[in-house]
Structure formats: C-alpha cells, structure tokens
C-alpha cells in the first residue's frame, strides 16, 4: 500500500525545488522536441505535392513543391541544377550534350528526364500510389 499523497508533495513549488538543473534542461529539451515534432508533422502532412529527384535510379531527394529553392544534383557527368519555384520545376543547368532536359522548361506535373546525367525529376502527388500499388496502368 502506498502512503496517501500529501498536498505538499504535489505542489509545484515542491516539485521545482526537488528538480535539478539537469532535469530542467531535460524537460525543456523534451518539450521542444515534441513541439518541433508537431510542426514537422504538419509540414510533412501538408505537402501533398512533392518533387522527387532520382540519380541513376536511386531516390536522392524528396522535396515539397511549395518551397522555392535551387537544388544542385550530382550525377555521373556533373551537376544538374533543379529549380523549384511557384509550384513548378525546371532544370536550369545540365552537363549533358543536347540539353533536352533544360528545353523542357517548367513542369508542374510529370517528369523531367536527363538520360546522359542519369537524373530523373518527378513532380506530382507521390507516396499515395506507392503504398497502394507497384505500378499504375492508364
């Protein structure tokens, strides 16, 4: 049988006085972690549309489509620069010979493929179909 908890023991004051500095730091870190977790999850859930960049068949980046940025992607031939801006994606620089990937211009849904540098940029709604199926027909 546990002794009945006294009022004094439960008071905040008492609690604080019995915690060490290390405890306080630990609590703060835990609170921060859980808060950032919530923010991170919100971010992750809100981005329905993503940009997936693969090099030589291997996924290298999975980025939200709603954040503007320029990503240098290293391929076997050099660096392919992928720009994400206003929910659209394009290749701005490529070490390949014919620059077909650059000529494709802005893409908001679909793929940009640079065969010589083995870079594939896929824009659209990912994740969902990879869970439900291995491939889509139609």
């Amino acid at each position, binding site marked *: 049988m546990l002794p009945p908890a006294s009022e004094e023991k439960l008071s905040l004051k008492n609690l604080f006085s019995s915690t060490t500095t290390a405890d306080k730091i630990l609590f703060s870190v835990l609170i921060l972690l859980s808060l950032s977790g919530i923010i991170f999850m919100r971010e992750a859930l809100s981005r329905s549309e993503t940009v997936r960049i693969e090099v030589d068949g291997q996924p290298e980046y999975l980025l939200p489509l709603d954040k503007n940025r320029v990503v240098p992607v290293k391929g076997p031939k050099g660096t392919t620069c992928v720009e994400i801006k206003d929910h659209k994606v394009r290749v701005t620089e490529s070490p390949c010979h014919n620059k077909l990937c650059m000529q494709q211009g802005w893409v908001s849904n679909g793929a940009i493929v640079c065969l010589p540098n083995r870079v594939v940029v896929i824009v659209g709604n990912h994740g969902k179909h990879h869970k439900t199926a291995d491939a*889509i027909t139609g």
Partner: protein
Amino acid sequence: MDTLVTITVVSDSKDNAEKAIDAAFTEIEILDKLLNFYSHDSEIANINNQAGISGVKVSADVFEVLNKTLYVSEMTEGAFDVTIGPVSMLYDFHKKIKPSEYGIKKNLQLVNYRYLVLDKDTSTVFLMKKGMLVDPGGITKGFAADKAVEVLKKRGIHSGLVSVAGDIKTFGLKPDGKPWKIGIRDARAVDKEDDVMGTIELKDMAISTSGDYERFFILDGQRYHHLLNPKTGYPALGCRSVSVITSEAVFTDAFATGAFVLGPEKGLKLLERLEFEGVIVDNQGKIYVTAGLRGKIELKKSF
C-alpha cells in the same frame, strides 16, 4: 517513345540488376527507332514512304508487330486497325486541331488493314495504296514491354515489372512472395495521375489501359481523344477506359484499344471470347468486369 518507362527488377546482386535494366532500356530504345511513326528514318517510315510503290524488307521485330496487328484487326473486326495513320495524322491533340469532315472522309478511304500485305518468306511489308500509312502507336508500347522482359529474363532476372507508359508486363513474384499489385487509373480523376479506381494483383501477366483521358482536347463541349474508330475516323464514344489483362503486353495494348472502339458490350464479349480478363468503364461511368476477374479485382466503388 516520348513516354515514361519504368523498370523494376528483383535480384540479389545490384550490379546484375543494373546491367539487366540497362540492357532492357537499350532494347526499348532500339524498338522505338524501328517503330516510331513520327521519325523519318524508322522502318515504319520506310514502309509508309513506299506505300503503293513497293514492298519493304523489315527486321524481325517490325514484321512480328505488324503481323500481330493483323491478328488483332481480324479479332476486332477492324476496330483496331494499324493503317489508321492517314486519319490519326489529321488530329493534333497538343494544338487542339480537329480535322475537317472532308479531310476525314477522304483519308478514311486509305484506312484498311486488308491492304497491308506481309510476306513472311521475304520478310517484306507492302502497303497497296499510295498515301496509306501504318501507325503502330496502339501496339508498340506493349510490344516493347514484352521484349524488355525477355531481355531481363535472359540476364537471369526472375522477377520484375516493366511499364511503358502504363502498358505493364510483370513476371515472377515480389521479394515478399506476393504478386505485383497494379493500380488502374481513375478515368475522371483530373490531374491526379495516381488516383486509381481499383487494384489488381498480377503474376506473369500483362495489363494495359486505353482511356479517353490520355490524349484529348475538348472543343464545343465535345471530347476529342486519340482512340479513333477506324470505321468513322472520329473518336470512339462508348467508353471512358478499357483495361485488358493477358500474358502478353503486345495483346493487352492492342486489344485495350480494340475493345475501347467496340464499346462496352461488344468489348466485354470480345475479351470473354479471347479468354482475356478486363475492366471496362462506359461513357456513363458504369463498370463492367469479365467473369474471371470478379473477386480478384479490388474496386473503390461497388459495381
């Protein structure tokens, strides 16, 4: 082929897997060079240039594809016709160009697979009338998927999946021992390529879907899509999408187009007669499923 090709293989060696995939991609590129309707130096272009003049000797692959189109044409009573070229070239789905009625009527006279003559002994192909054009676009993607799988198998791969723009050929099982799971795109999910109407598990089977949403434009409230009826020269109206399942992708590809043109009732009967499986969505959204597929296909909506 101007389309997205994905190749997935299962192998215990990354090196082998990559080499096999490279070889399979090379195979698809070679086939594209031979069979491309729009290029000027493909074997198909050669055949078309010599229409009404002389027969053209072709490679074994091109001969095989054209030979198969004749079989599909016979089975679909001309609903699939590889000589649709003179009519299909009148449409431009990017620029939203609808041909004139006169143009369609005139060029329709050049559409008839019976004027495509194949000579097996000399491996030559001859189009009997000048101006005729073979456009094998309705069969090459499936054919390429089959051939890519052959290459993978020759390289010792026992399991994989090749998708050439949605014409999919699977073989073997996944590493978890399960069959490949294929989603069938929802014909009216606008701009959401990953929205599926249902899923089906396949082992050593191919699947293709022909849909009125792939290449189309809307003009005066009318949808003009790329699945043309070879009898009228206009887009076929009975279906939104037709998916076909059998062992060879060359046939799922061509018969999906053929069944689409035939319309839901005739299309379903054809698939049953061929002992193929399939799913047809008619122009009202009603779903028809072949008997063998009931219980095996997972549909989001009931039917």
